[in-house]
């Protein structure tokens, strides 16, 4: 299979990556090259094979429901692009 320019633009939009027409053109060629490599998978007979999501067969650990961390809001917000009064600032989303 091969992707279309429209699909590349759509995927870039889903991934929230601004893409110019020239970049989309380049990406189309590259992605099709990569997908021709990936297509080799389709020839494998995997009927009845259980998908393996993870290398280790371990169950999620649970922890006690109690406070274990100290408040580090100031330190963590010091690296944010824009904050005020302990809040992260973003462009207005609700009119």
């Amino acid at each position, binding site marked *: 299979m091969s*992707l279309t320019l429209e*699909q*590349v633009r759509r*995927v*870039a*939009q*889903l*991934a*929230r*990556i*601004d*893409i110019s027409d020239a970049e989309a053109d380049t*990406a189309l060629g*590259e*992605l099709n*090259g*990569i*997908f*021709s*490599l*990936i*297509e*080799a*998978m*389709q020839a*494998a007979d*995997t009927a009845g*094979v*259980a*998908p*393996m*999501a*993870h*290398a*280790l067969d*371990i169950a*999620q*650990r649970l*922890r006690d429901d109690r406070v274990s961390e100290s408040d*580090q809001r100031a*330190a*963590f917000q*010091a*690296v*944010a*692009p*824009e904050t005020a009064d302990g809040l*992260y600032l*973003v*462009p*207005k*989303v609700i009119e």
Partner: protein
Amino acid sequence: MIERSLKSLAQGLAKGEFSSVELTQAYLERIARHNPEINAFITVDPDKSLAQAKAADLRRARGEAGPLLGIPLAQKDIFCAQGWRTTCGSRMLENFVSPYDATVIERFDAAGAVNLGKTNMDEFAMGSSNETSYFGAVKNPWDPARVPGGSSGGSAAAVAARLAPAATGTDTGGSIRQPAALCGLTGLKPTYGVVSRWGMIAFASSLDQAGPMARSAEDCALLLNAMAGFDTRDSTSVERPAEDYTRLLAADAPAKPLAGLKIGLPREFFGEAERAGCDAAVMARVDEAIAAYRALGAETVEVSLPAMQLSVPAYYVIAPAEASSNLSRFDGVRYGHRAPEYSDLDDMYSKTRAQGFGAEVKRRILIGTYVLSHGYYDAYYRQAQRIRRLIADDFARAFKECDVIMGPTSPGTAFRIGEKAADPVQMYLSDIYTIAVNLAGLPGMSVPCGLANGLPTGLQLIGNYFGEARLLDVAHRYQRATDWHLQRPTALAD
């Protein structure tokens, strides 16, 4: 001093031959002299390093001891280190100063090791040549026109150029083993879950694993002792008793130290037709290494890993899928780059990510987003996970016949900077021998096994789950009988 092993440096420190401050200073001077050419480090902060060295000297003066107390180490810039700029090789994190320590950093701090600086890497660890770094390509100290491999290329180049005695790396598809092979080092990717991933910037979480890069298996074992261990903050950290990874590295050297060891040689590496996939000179060095192992008493058996031929396609579905999810956190809100101009929130996200990520990272996010999107999930992601199972089953079958699997680490020696940069598929195929190990979650090593046309080659050793100590011993025995791991680039000697 710069040729001494970690053990020998520790002895020097213990005997008072030199202080940690003096040792650290010596390496910082080498970095100042040679890093402008090699570009192995993104961030060096002599004041911070020397303060740590001073603290280590003080701890020793108070009677403390330890194999890494006062030893300077280079840290891959994927590990968050408090107060250090931590970029992951990306413009997205160009000015990010971490407010906390990764578990690996914390554990080295506790052991008294000194952070010499943060090493260059492919952006978000996506690459096999270090050319995708926002901070510029790293040069291979064996030939500055060539790549050091990737993604832990800065760490590899730093150790090969003797700008650090050892370093950390991370390996998602070969990112410790391939640069180790291309720079003539010993590198170990542990079993998935052995080293905590907490504070290690995520690429593909079901594959990522940190490990040591050094000049010998013995040095790697010492580093792994500090790095490995259960950590509640990483939900995939394996809860098992602490191990001394040096315990099998016995000093005795009987005539046939590896008698009884069964080495599996996969048909997919060593078959008559399959050999053509590897550079002939590299294959010749690997054959010689296998012969050396036979001389040490090991026997070889043929094994087969038929699904391995699908490891690269499966990996380039699974790793980008996980990456597209992991990297969605970089949105210009909580940390990292934010576009200077935008209209609304969506526009801010899209411009921030377009500016902050480089071409390879974007490519992988697009692949990942596509394979996870509605209508394609079963054909790609699900199929890749099924192939992953077949690959893991192949290894399980093979390990019934042998103790360790061997083969080449990389299909060629270090390639020229720019040679593969324009062709992602060619670049992806440079990890053809290493990727299956990550998909299965097994431990893998690369050990120097001689030069081909003046460039280092690597022998890959693959062990069974949690077989690190045995793997390190198998590598160590070879290194006691050969001196390939002691070869160093002739440049940068001053």
